[in-house]
């Protein structure tokens, strides 16, 4: 009798956990690259053209401060609260200009903001669709009315872009959305690109930006690192970079070509395909439990039959 129930147990575990165990195997056999949509909107930042004036930062905050409840980041010395002096992307900044400098090395500015991935990890993990990717424009946008503030997007983002307002009672996630709803619709470009005096920020369709970037690499092979950062990283992103110093030194992480959601969603979907595995597991367990109960009831002294 006991052996039978053990077999039942193994069967039940087998059906449910089988899907779990098989998931990575299924994954290993498939590596189809997801389609890159070059019609989407994107941005090309050329670090060799940037003069570090930070007009883009000021324009961004002027345009988006209401939508993102952006405040000023005060410097420690600034007792009179005169300046906005952020040192990194924070819950008050959607974009920032940083300077990379090392003695004896060529220096470079870098502008950081949301990369608007082709297959964004933040959108994949958001449990309530607060982060969405517009299918036509490719813009990764944030909706504060849906967001529960779980910060899973921050865990997921390989670029550490989404920022959280840690010092607020009513916090939001802050990240660039290409000025959607504030500037883009009226002007056809982003605030940062519109004010850039040196043409370091180009805004447009990804295919045009890629073409432009390739021709710059060709025309000035000595000036640039010969890659377009963002073309292949994590399945391709829409915010592309050209630079004269290695991208890793500018704070742009070295990343694989596979998009993280491709890995996680594959496993998650294999387990929960059509919700079959949970239903099978539940039914099997129900049958076993009911049979066990029936067998148990007529016996007056349950403890004796184990006999061990």
């Amino acid at each position: 009798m006991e052996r039978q129930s053990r077999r039942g147990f193994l069967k039940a575990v087998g059906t449910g956990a089988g899907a779990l165990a098989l998931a990575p195997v299924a994954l290993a056999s498939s590596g189809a690259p997801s389609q890159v949509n070059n019609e989407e909107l994107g941005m090309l930042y050329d670090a060799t053209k940037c003069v570090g004036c930070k007009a883009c930062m000021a324009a961004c905050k002027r345009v988006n401060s209401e939508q993102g409840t952006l405040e000023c980041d005060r410097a420690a010395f600034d007792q009179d609260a005169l300046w906005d002096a952020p040192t990194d992307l924070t819950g008050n900044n959607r974009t920032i200009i940083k300077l990379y400098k090392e003695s004896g090395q060529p220096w470079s500015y870098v502008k950081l903001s949301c990369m608007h991935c082709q297959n964004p990890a933040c959108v994949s993990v958001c449990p309530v669709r607060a982060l969405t990717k517009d299918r036509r424009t490719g813009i990764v946008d944030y909706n504060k009315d849906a967001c529960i503030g779980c910060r899973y997007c921050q865990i997921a983002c390989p670029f550490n872009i989404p920022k959280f307002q840690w010092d607020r009672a009513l916090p939001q996630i802050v990240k660039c959305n290409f000025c959607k709803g504030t500037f883009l619709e009226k002007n056809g470009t982003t605030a940062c690109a519109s004010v850039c005096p040196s043409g370091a920020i180009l805004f447009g369709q990804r295919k045009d930006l890629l073409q432009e970037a390739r021709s710059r690499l060709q025309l000035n092979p000595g000036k640039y690192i010969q890659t377009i950062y963002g073309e292949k990283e994590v399945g391709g992103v829409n915010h592309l970079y050209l630079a004269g110093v290695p991208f890793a030194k500018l704070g742009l992480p070295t990343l694989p070509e596979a998009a993280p959601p491709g890995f996680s969603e594959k496993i998650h979907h294999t387990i929960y395909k059509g919700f079959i595995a949970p239903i099978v597991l539940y039914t099997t367990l129900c049958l076993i439990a009911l049979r066990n109960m029936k067998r148990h009831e007529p016996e007056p002294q349950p403890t004796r039959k184990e006999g061990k």
Partner: protein
Amino acid sequence: MHHDEFQKQEGNIFTKSFFVLLTLVLIGVYLVGVRCFKGLGAVSNMSDGYPWGIWITYDVATGTAIACGGYAVAILVYIRHHMHYHPLIRSCILTSMFGYALAGLSVMVDIGRPWNAYNFFVPSRWQGNSVMFEVALCVMAYTVVLIIEFLPAILYSLEKSEWRRLHEFVDSLPLALTPDKAKLARRIDKVRAVAGWIRPLLDKVLIFFIVLGMTLPTMHQSALGSLLLIATTKLHPLWHTGFLPLLFLINCIYIGYSIVILESVISAYAFKRPIEVKELSGVARIIPWLTVIWLSVVLGDLAYRHQLSAAFRFDFYSCFFLLEFALIALGSGILFRQENRWSPRWLFVSAVLIVLGGALYRFNVYLIGFNPGAGWTYFPSLAEVMVTVSIVAFELLAYQVLVKLVPVLPKIHLHGHGKPGKTKSEQKVTA
């Protein structure tokens, strides 16, 4: 179902430990208040690099594994059909209920915009790709299932108890506040009748909830592992694997059984009851098999991904990995010997080792092995730790109180361990 297997614990509710725990709970309440007005940054050391701190790592990811005793014993009783473990089940379900309810509570403290949490119930907001969505729904559903599983105990005491405490309370009130005694008695009778009516109905369908109580943890415990699948570039390769869901699932089951042992030994010590050695040694027999499977999956997977050398690099990550591995291996090694399984001391020691090792695994995945890049560090702040401590204190407090109000603990005479002198107190209880 088998209400005669359980009994109330006699004793005063307002003990010294009650007030100590209450103080800790109140400190936590104050800190949560600070968090509500000044933001998460005011009480925690979490940052944009480490957006999940110990509240998620301990209270949710580890706390629910520790609360898996109910799940693990339910498998044993209803699926593997070892009915003689049934006496253990009620205290396990009770602790599971607290574990999950409080994990839910700490999530509400942790999330930044809790007033939007209703979006989990708005179908147009559902996001099937998100593991978090699945975890949230499963954990909420499981908490409800646990409450339903525990209802028979509450209904039973509503129906059968003499309402002594209420009467004492009413008697202690000043005359002006004392309600009409006859009216009170009639009301109590009504409650009794309703409880007596619901209980048999519930008993009939309870098995379907019990089985749901086994399906849901299987789903969300594996999903707790899947949560970190997305962190392909941030979680150290020692832990980032496609087998995360499987590892988390097995991990929660052996932690669950170990916690059953710990809980029984500790409550036997605290409430001065005999230890249920026979049942516990049976539970202990299962643990090493689970851990052996788990350890082989870990090793096999590391070998498959060519990461075995990373385990023996003896750097920061490798040390934590080896510690986790050693704790679990040592704990289960002890349990392979039959004499050790019959010794409460060895049972306790090995259960502690396995719970520590299993919990460390979850810390490794959620915090220690998580590296968002240069420049970010995390160590929990005192206030953050105190919130977690107060949540654990609340759990202990509620357990302590409930076992005295409701028949939860296994009846002593059933196991034949009870010393003759002890049966006297037990007769009082069954009244």
